[in-house]
């Protein structure tokens, strides 16, 4: 149905022409799912835009052949192309939050897609919109038509986007990172929906993603893209069972996969960074990062070679050696564990395993927020009665959907906000009464976004050494010495000392952030999604580094993440948060093998592993996410809970604390639920 041959996309930039896509070929058949997987900057998104004719101004698209249902798209005039777009070929994008026009109603935006292409009445269009909204799992579809996009949650918006793409019943659907911006629980639902719809509409589906797990679950055929080109293509099972290209192999070794990589073990990582796409690349684009590269890789043009049934790879390695390399993370160590590089060993803390270093005692945080300009402020219980111990030398994982209060909790622990009620004890003493400087000496943050975490106007040396200077802990020379030490420690070259952050890659920046957090030798590091903004190949490097450091210095980590695989790999204990409350706290083994809270179970169900046989799970969470401003009565999780009972709707569950851990759920409450009549009697007595 779609036939692409030698597609290239060039972008003009101030530094020269950027060859973002460098001559790719592929076909997509009716009813087939074709996945393009690659890291950021690999050219995968531009490929999808090039197919739709939606390239940004100035970008040049060239191809030997670009045919959709035998129709040549290359020679098509723009208005004829527009006739196809949204009609025969449709597209959904990564950011559901920004991809819908904020000033028009959902209904209007749905209907116009159909009205534009087909001679239907407005009423028919509306009916079709309601039908499709219902089909994509939007509750109360008819009333949604009059709503505006911002009134819907991200998951609902992505469903609306899908419905919009389907309005004309297209033959080809291109989905560009359709689930990246969504929570794991929603991600699984959306992927499942896409699969189902593809069957129902018998469409071709091109799915563009960076997430190998997603690929494994939904793809029929896969293309791995690197530096503007496909390096490996083939059926999904072939690719995952017998990855042939070193890049594909490297990527797979980077992901922490339960069962494959031991918890806390070192992950594989791909050294180096992607080459500049300005100008031509001779030889293999991956060679400078490839541990198996040899002289021939630097020369000539390397073509996709047929290596199995429909399986192609762009690599000169002999077949046998390539096969032997797969699945061996030790081949992919990007760097040595850097701790030995220290000139002067950091005095090791005598670990007092199990002693709580931080204790949260019924900590609550309430904000007053205004939902809209005309409305009054209402309280938002961001953190609600949280009790938690963080023990010396442990990695405590904190998981939960976005907006559940994870980051607020981190801010409280960093001393940035004082809790509305309850208190935080540090080494047994109330922490917030000590003031920020005290807290800073012992607790330091590593943030998610390495671009925002470093002041772009300061040199790396200044940024790392700043804590010492602010606290007046060392003289200029001493600061410089310690900074250089830490630059070594986190595996950066010494020359970055005088660099500005914008001269560093994302992974390098995150290392700078870690060095800065460490320079005051704190006890606790709060890692707030430390790798979620990074590519997988870099993520594994940072995770390795964090683990090395933790072991070497007996650091205590609070690791906040929505990525369950990362938490499972890193954490000793895990706390699960839902709408400001900790619903389950237990050790890793218990949590991942025997989750007790239905929410934990659902989270685990929706987490995807790169297993091509597993299919897309259905966590059965329903499509309506919770609204923190309007928490449901009783157990806050009950509207989404598949096991909800009658009294879950009215009564808050108790906290059950036993050997297996702590959980807040009626299911595990051994004492009989208090009847409503009983409760009333008690209230009136009081």
């Amino acid at each position, binding site marked *: 149905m779609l036939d692409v041959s030698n597609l290239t996309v060039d972008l003009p930039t101030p530094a020269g022409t950027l060859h973002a896509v460098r001559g790719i070929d592929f076909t997509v058949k009716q009813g087939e799912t074709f996945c393009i997987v690659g890291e950021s900057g690999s050219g995968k998104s531009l490929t999808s835009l090039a197919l739709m004719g939606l390239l940004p101004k100035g970008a040049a698209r060239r191809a030997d052949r670009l045919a959709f249902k035998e129709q040549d798209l290359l020679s098509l005039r723009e208005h004829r192309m527009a006739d196809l777009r949204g009609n025969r070929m449709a597209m959904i994008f990564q950011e559901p939050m920004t991809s819908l026009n904020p000033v028009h109603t959902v209904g209007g935006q749905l209907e116009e897609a159909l009205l534009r292409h087909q001679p239907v009445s407005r009423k028919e269009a509306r009916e079709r919109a309601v039908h499709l909204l219902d089909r994509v799992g939007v509750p109360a579809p008819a009333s949604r038509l009059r709503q505006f996009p911002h009134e819907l949650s991200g998951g609902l918006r992505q469903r609306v986007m899908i419905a919009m793409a389907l309005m004309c019943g297209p033959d080809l659907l291109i989905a560009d990172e359709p689930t990246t911006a969504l929570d794991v629980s929603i991600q699984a639902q959306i992927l499942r929906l896409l699969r189902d719809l593809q069957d129902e509409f018998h469409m071709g589906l091109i799915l563009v993603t960076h997430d190998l797990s997603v690929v494994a679950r939904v793809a029929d055929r896969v293309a791995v893209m690197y530096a503007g080109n496909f390096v490996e293509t083939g059926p999904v099972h072939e690719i995952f069972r017998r990855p042939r290209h070193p890049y594909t192999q490297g990527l797979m070794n980077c992901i922490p996969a339960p069962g494959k990589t031991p918890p806390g073990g070192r992950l594989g990582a791909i050294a180096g*960074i992607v080459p500049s796409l300005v100008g031509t690349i001779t030889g293999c684009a991956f060679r400078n990062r490839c541990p198996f590269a040899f002289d021939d890789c630097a020369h000539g043009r390397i073509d996709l070679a047929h290596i199995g049934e429909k399986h192609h790879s762009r690599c000169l390695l002999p077949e046998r050696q390539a096969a032997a390399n797969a699945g061996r993370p030790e081949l992919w160590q990007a760097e040595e564990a850097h701790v030995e590089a220290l000139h002067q060993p950091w005095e090791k803390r005598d670990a007092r395993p199990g002693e709580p270093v931080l204790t949260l005692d019924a900590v609550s945080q309430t904000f007053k927020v205004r939902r809209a300009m005309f409305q009054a402020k209402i309280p938002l219980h961001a953190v609600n009665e949280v009790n938690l111990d963080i023990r010396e030398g442990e990695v405590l994982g904190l998981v939960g959907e976005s907006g559940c209060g994870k980051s607020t909790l981190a801010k409280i622990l960093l001393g940035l906000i004082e809790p509305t009620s309850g208190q935080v004890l540090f080494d047994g003493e109330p922490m917030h009464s000590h003031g920020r400087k005290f807290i800073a000496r012992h607790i330091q943050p590593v943030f998610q976004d390495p671009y925002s975490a470093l002041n772009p106007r300061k040199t790396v040396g200044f*940024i790392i050494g700043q804590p010492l200077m602010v606290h007046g802990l060392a003289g200029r020379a001493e600061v410089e010495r310690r900074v250089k030490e830490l630059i070594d420690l986190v595996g950066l070259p010494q020359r970055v000392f005088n660099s500005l952050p914008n001269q560093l890659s994302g992974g390098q920046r995150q290392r700078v952030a870690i060095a800065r957090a460490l320079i005051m030798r704190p006890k606790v590091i709060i890692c707030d999604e430390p790798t979620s903004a990074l590519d997988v190949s870099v993520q594994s490097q940072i995770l390795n580094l964090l683990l090395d450091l933790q072991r070497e210095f007996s650091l205590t980590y609070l690791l906040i993440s929505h990525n369950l695989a990362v938490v499972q790999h890193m954490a000793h204990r895990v706390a699960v948060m839902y709408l400001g409350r900790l619903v389950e706290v237990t050790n890793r083994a218990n949590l991942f093998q025997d989750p007790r809270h239905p929410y934990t179970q659902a989270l685990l169900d929706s987490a995807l592993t790169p297993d091509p046989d597993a299919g897309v799970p259905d966590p059965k969470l329903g499509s309506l996410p919770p609204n923190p401003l309007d928490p449901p009565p009783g157990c806050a999780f009950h509207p989404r809970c598949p096991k909800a009972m009658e009294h879950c709707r009215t009564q808050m569950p108790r906290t059950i604390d036993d050997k297996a851990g702590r959980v807040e759920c009626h299911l595990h409450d051994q004492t009989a639920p208090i009847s409503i009549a009983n409760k009333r009697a008690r209230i009136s007595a009081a």
Partner: protein
Amino acid sequence: MSATPQDDKNLPDFGAALSEPSAGQMLRRRVFGHTGLVIGGTILLIIALMALLAPLIAPHDPYAHNLANRLVPPIWHDWFYDDPRATWTHIFGTDHQGRDYLSRIIYGARISLLIGFSAAIISGVIGCTLGLVAGYYGGRVDMVVNFIITTRLAMPVILVALAVVALMGSSLTIVVLVLGFLLWDQFAVVMRTLAMQMREFDFVTSAQALGCSPRYIIMREILPNVLNALLVVMTIEMANAILLEAALSFLGLGVQPPLPSWGLMLSQAKDEIFFDPWMITIPGLALLMLVLAINLIGDGLRDVTSPEGRS
């Protein structure tokens, strides 16, 4: 330049970032590649040199009066109208006191630049302080500052300036002070918005977590990051101050004669507009060039320093 916001953010990551041309080189390349910036910069440089070297290049004493020799037409009246009074002695002619117009224009550059610059500095200090503090603290502080800003915006600038100057009397100092105290709104508004954005950056959060004082964070962490915008607003306000001084002078309430401010020369020449139009044209063009240059520089800086700008 790029396809999606996501790609946009990651673009600098392409290739070996460390071996790319340095930020300074890139900036230099963009600055000199920007036509408006080059033109504006050249004009401003000429005017600034004129102001700086006035005693060396002015052919006459700008204050030397000679009533018997007043309103001599400029040299081109010799070429086009055969006016025998026009000579090379006074290239731009003389004004109503018989003073050399060219010398006054040259010295006038000093006054106009001085007014624009000092007023922009004063208002910059006021506006930045208010804006940064409001944006950084938010909440009640922001409410108070916002109130101050709204109050200032609600006061009609020209009217209040006129009233103050008319009732108190005017001098160079008073004009500069009045303009300085009135023109800080842009600074405050822009700095407030930027500080609010900056506050959300993690590097500010981590400075807070370090226990840095708000003063330290505002001055050392935020300010260096908003200097670009500050510079742009500065040019706008400089241009504004110069134009406003001209407007005050037009109504007879700007700087005082015999100081040769271009605004003042313009206003004194306006009565001659029908019979000696050159008198208003010359300072008018000078003022136009100066403000144009400043605006071009402001626009250019905005373009050069913002990634979305024209390249």
